[in-house]
């Protein structure tokens, strides 16, 4: 959770995934300006003080020697998967993964040079067709799953919700393990406000901040909201 010295408005800290951590207590995030909070972050000058609470929540499962992890990133959902890629690269294990990275336009795909330098196997898609394969990243995913058919494969994904659910359905239909890093509105990041609830199979609700943000897709895909409790109170 990150917040600048913004006074009373916007009020709440913003949740970000880490792009990189270290050396020491340094860390990087990737921010896309979508609202007032990110606009203020974009305008922050070098040396500006930010309040940071973290790291919070869980992470993607560790890589396995016999398994290929297909990292499926959409736009600004890249950071947690970039970190997985960088960790693997540092261990000399890039053969255990492939990075499938999609965006609307070429300008939405960032850090490509860095990922090439890590020698990550990259499969890019843009809806505009400007860069990589034309179309959605799910198309590239289907192609890579076809390529690896019969071998142990997992999917790790982060991006906009419609993309994540499409990825999770592909995984379910093919019986491939799939882990999603979800995003939700949250006020606190520590399991207190209970704002970032998502319906799940294992319990009526799970919380993106404290149970996630990474979930087994099978626990959260196509789960309908539980019936509203009796005597619904305003807050």
């Amino acid at each position, binding site marked *: 959770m990150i917040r600048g010295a913004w006074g009373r408005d916007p*009020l*709440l800290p913003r949740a970000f995934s880490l792009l990189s951590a270290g050396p020491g207590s340094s860390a990087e995030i990737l921010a896309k300006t979508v609202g007032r909070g990110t606009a203020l972050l974009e305008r922050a000058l070098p040396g500006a003080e930010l309040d940071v609470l973290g790291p919070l929540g869980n992470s993607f499962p560790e890589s396995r020697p016999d398994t290929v992890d297909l990292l499926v990133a959409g736009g600004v959902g890249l950071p947690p998967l970039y970190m997985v890629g960088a960790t693997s690269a540092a261990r000399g294990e890039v053969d255990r993964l492939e990075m499938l990275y999609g965006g609307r336009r070429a300008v939405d795909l960032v850090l490509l040079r860095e990922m090439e330098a890590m020698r990550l196997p990259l499969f890019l898609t843009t809806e505009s067709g400007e860069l990589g394969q034309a179309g959605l990243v799910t198309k590239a995913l289907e192609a890579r799953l076809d390529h690896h058919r019969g071998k142990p494969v997992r999917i790790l994904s982060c991006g906009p919700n419609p993309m994540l659910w499409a990825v999770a359905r592909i995984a379910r239909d093919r019986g491939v393990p799939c882990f999603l890093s979800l995003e939700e*509105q949250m006020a606190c990041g520590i399991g207190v*406000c209970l*704002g970032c*609830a998502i319906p799940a199979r294992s319990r009526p609700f799970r919380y993106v901040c404290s149970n996630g943000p990474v979930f087994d897709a099978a626990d959260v895909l196509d789960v309908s909201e*539980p019936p*509203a409790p009796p*005597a619904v109170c305003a*807050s």
Partner: protein
Amino acid sequence: MSVRLEIETGRIAFRNPVLTASGTFGYGKEFESLTDLGALGGLVTKGISPKPRFGNSTPRICETASGMLNSIGLENVGVEGFERDKLPFLRACGTRVLVNFFGATFDEYIDCGARLDRLDGVDGLEMNVSCPNIKAGGIEFGTDPRVLRDLVRACREVIRKPLWIKLTPNTSDIVALARSCADAGADGLSIINTITGMAIDARTRKPKIATIFAGLSGPAIKPIALRMVYQVRRAGVPLPISGIGGIQDATDAIEFFLAGASTVQVGTQSFVDPDASGGIVRQLAERLTADGITDVRELIGALRVA
């Protein structure tokens, strides 16, 4: 010069007058590593109902100008779960513990209050009366002075611990509600709960919260909260007040003391800064020292009105 922050109010002796508000501080343990719980005046737990409840549909929260809307649905672990899983930690946390509670019917309120009253380690109860009374067409228990008086009286009969009533601001006459609580034998008032509001996404044409209406909190509501605390104080309702609404720093807390509150509760600010309440305690001591005030009680109701 030392500053006295201790205060005994609403039949509870506090180390200092800074408490954390219900629904914004979980069951305390969530903040264990983020603030010094023992330095707080007290904490008020998430609202407890007789049985566990899961919450409302999503989305449940959204940010608004200098505030936020929430419609969580009073999700909680229930009385049994609270006693088994949450209370052991709270007993040892080193601060006063008030348990917020509610029900869907008179009987549920009485049942819940009576069971919490028997628990060691609970210093007091705070009753949430902002729930809809299903039998009365869904109008909130806490908006009708007669219903509120009867509800508080019924709970008072089974509750020996200190009993505070958290008033809803969604009313045209906060004083009448406060008087009802005094008449029914309550020990204190918490003023205010969230203000009902809504937010709309102009692009999708949908409400931003699944339940459409939600509770507004944060600095946006502070002027309303101050006004209501002062109204109740000025009317001479003989109950101490715990002031709640948009408190972010020691200056905000002092404003509530001046309006007539003897303690304050920090709510939404704990989301912005988990150590907010601890910070206010430290700031308060510094501010009073700087201003030459030796006892925080000097401030209570000390508003200068011509």
